[in-house]
């Protein structure tokens, strides 16, 4: 079971909660509401949300079978307790009527279940067309008979990632064609036990020239960079780029603390051949619903030299962590370990590079709508897998070098060999025993003699410490 709160958002519970809200607001049971306002106008007479199915319809209901030992064994009627998430029984042509209504933007014959405007809104994956907002409303389309269901695939690419036990993972690609590719990658991780959450912030390339050609205006996308004057103060950057959308609850707040990371800045300068960089961590504090929270916003701002009158700059490695007050410092090494591992997820890097490739091919116009982008991404599925494999191998080769540079600024993180993946993983330092199973779940113990194989069906193997200086 998961604790209530953030997690219910992504679950049957969430859908059922929406059903309960329908019930509360309409003043009638959810079942009555659906019958009166959807099933009746669509003439769906062989459909019911009642459980068990009403007597008049029982002869129309299929019997579920389990095929075992060469024969079909009839099974009972399964009751979905969270009914708005899965109670319905329906005939094929009744479902066709529902689809027709949606395909015709709410119209079914002379009747309507939604106005054209509402239906179009509902069918629009970029419901909130503002940058920085999490990619909402895709979930609807995953289950919808429409070209846009391809996006489910994009999300699915990431869903297999398992990190330190108890961390949940959500990764998606959002297509905001007016932004550069970095702004389109989303990643969120949270710890079910402590409400600690790590979220990658929209990253963005910028270009600026003081002699803007007539057609370009601030905010335009010019060669993959948004036209904007360099902001050299990190606090001001957060205020102007993230608090309007990605971090609205930090609006008008000053950070309580600031930490600079000259090591990361030096690395950015060396890697990207930029002339100036600053890497910072800003610590914010805020109250929400009578509870004190703290939030770190970490990022690197890098500025390239002016070339032909154009200044390029960007924000890199941007992520934020928040937790109830005191949680960030108490769990610092865990958070760092998670961040270090996720940065290196092969699927993530592979998908990113495909998106970059598509953008290089100048496909942004064709991909302006999300459905087309989803299809494009699916065309590239095999390619993504192959790239993932390649990157995985390259990662193994360069792992030590990367591990070293990561540790330089992360600290508190050690490298262990995962015997299943045959690769290194970062683990929070300070434990006596590190175990991993075939699913990639990890258990850490402060007792050296701890053995998770006792009383567990998973095959747990002990992870040995890897010396990064020696292959």
């Amino acid at each position: 079971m998961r604790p209530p709160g953030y997690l219910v958002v992504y679950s049957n519970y969430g859908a059922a909660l929406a059903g309960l809200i329908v019930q509360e607001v309409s003043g009638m049971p959810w079942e009555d509401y659906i019958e009166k306002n959807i099933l009746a106008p669509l003439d769906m007479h062989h459909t019911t949300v009642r459980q068990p199915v009403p007597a008049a319809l029982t002869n129309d209901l299929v019997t579920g079978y389990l095929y075992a030992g060469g024969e079909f064994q009839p099974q009972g009627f399964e009751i979905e307790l969270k009914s708005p998430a899965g109670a319905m029984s329906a005939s094929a042509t009744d479902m066709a009527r529902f689809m027709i209504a949606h395909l015709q933007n709410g119209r079914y014959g002379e009747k309507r279940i939604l106005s054209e405007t509402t239906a179009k809104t509902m069918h629009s994956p970029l419901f909130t067309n503002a940058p920085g907002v999490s990619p909402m409303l895709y979930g609807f389309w995953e289950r919808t008979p429409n070209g846009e269901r391809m996006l489910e695939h994009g999300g699915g690419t990431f869903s297999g990632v398992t990190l330190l036990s108890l961390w949940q993972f959500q990764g998606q690609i959002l297509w905001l064609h007016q932004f550069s590719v970095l702004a389109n990658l989303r990643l969120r991780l949270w710890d079910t036990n402590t409400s600690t959450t790590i979220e990658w912030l929209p990253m963005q390339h910028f270009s600026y020239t003081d002699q803007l050609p007539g057609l370009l205006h601030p905010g335009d996308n010019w060669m993959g960079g948004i036209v904007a004057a360099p902001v050299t103060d990190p606090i001001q950057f957060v205020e102007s780029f993230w608090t309007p959308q990605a971090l609205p609850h930090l609006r008008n707040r000053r950070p309580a603390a600031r930490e600079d990371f000259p090591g990361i800045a030096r690395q950015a300068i060396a890697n990207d051949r930029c002339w100036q960089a600053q890497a910072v961590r800003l610590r914010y504090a805020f109250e929400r619903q009578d509870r004190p929270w703290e939030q770190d916003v970490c990022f690197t701002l890098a500025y390239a030299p002016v070339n032909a009158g154009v200044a390029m700059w960007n924000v890199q490695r941007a992520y934020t962590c928040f937790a109830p007050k005191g949680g960030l410092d108490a769990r610092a090494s865990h958070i760092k370990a998670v961040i270090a591992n996720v940065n290196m997820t092969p699927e993530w890097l592979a998908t990113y590079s495909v998106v970059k490739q598509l953008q290089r091919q100048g496909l942004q116009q064709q991909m302006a709508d999300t459905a087309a982008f989803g299809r494009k991404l699916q065309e590239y599925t095999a390619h993504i897998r192959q790239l993932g494999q390649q990157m995985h191998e390259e990662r193994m080769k360069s792992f030590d070098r990367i591990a070293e540079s990561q540790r330089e600024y992360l600290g508190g993180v050690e490298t262990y060999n995962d015997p299943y993946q045959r690769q290194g993983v970062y683990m929070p330092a300070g434990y006596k025993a590190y175990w991993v199973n075939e699913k990639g779940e990890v258990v850490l113990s402060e007792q050296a003699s701890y053995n998770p194989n006792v009383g567990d069906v998973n095959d747990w193997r002990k992870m040995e410490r890897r010396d990064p200086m020696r292959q």
Partner: protein
Amino acid sequence: MKMKSRIVTILLASLAVVCTSLAGTETNTTRGFRGPAEMEAFVDGVIAAQLESLHIPGAAVAVVADGKVYFAKGYGYADLEKHRKVDPETTMFRIASVTKLFTWTAVMQLVEQGKLDLKVDVNAYLKAFKIPATFPEPITLTHLLTHTAGFEDSEIGEYSLDPAHFKSLGQVLAN
């Protein structure tokens, strides 16, 4: 678990085909098929093979195009013992999570009527209990609408074969 996957397969047999065909018809109604008869021949082949190889007793297919049912047909049995055949018009399958689309449609109807706001804390609408504030952002209907694949809840307490377990929605969710 095994039982569940079998039932799901039966449903997918009916629904997956509907969905796939739809995506095609959206751009070009008759691409690949010169009419319902030709589509029927194609679907017959696909379904027959699936029913046999996956040991599915019955399935139904419906394809819509241009606001009408273009093709619909039932295959196999709805109940093997009673020799009830699948009828695409009347045989009811458990559509499981596709139910959510009806819930979302209901939500959008109420948004249209101004009774719901997708951006408001859901606690404003809940009477019997409130969602505790575990995270800084309040939960809104926009969040609920974005149910994302891969994060299904624990199946414990999700299903029951005993009608006596059926509780009111408020009771189920308050836990």
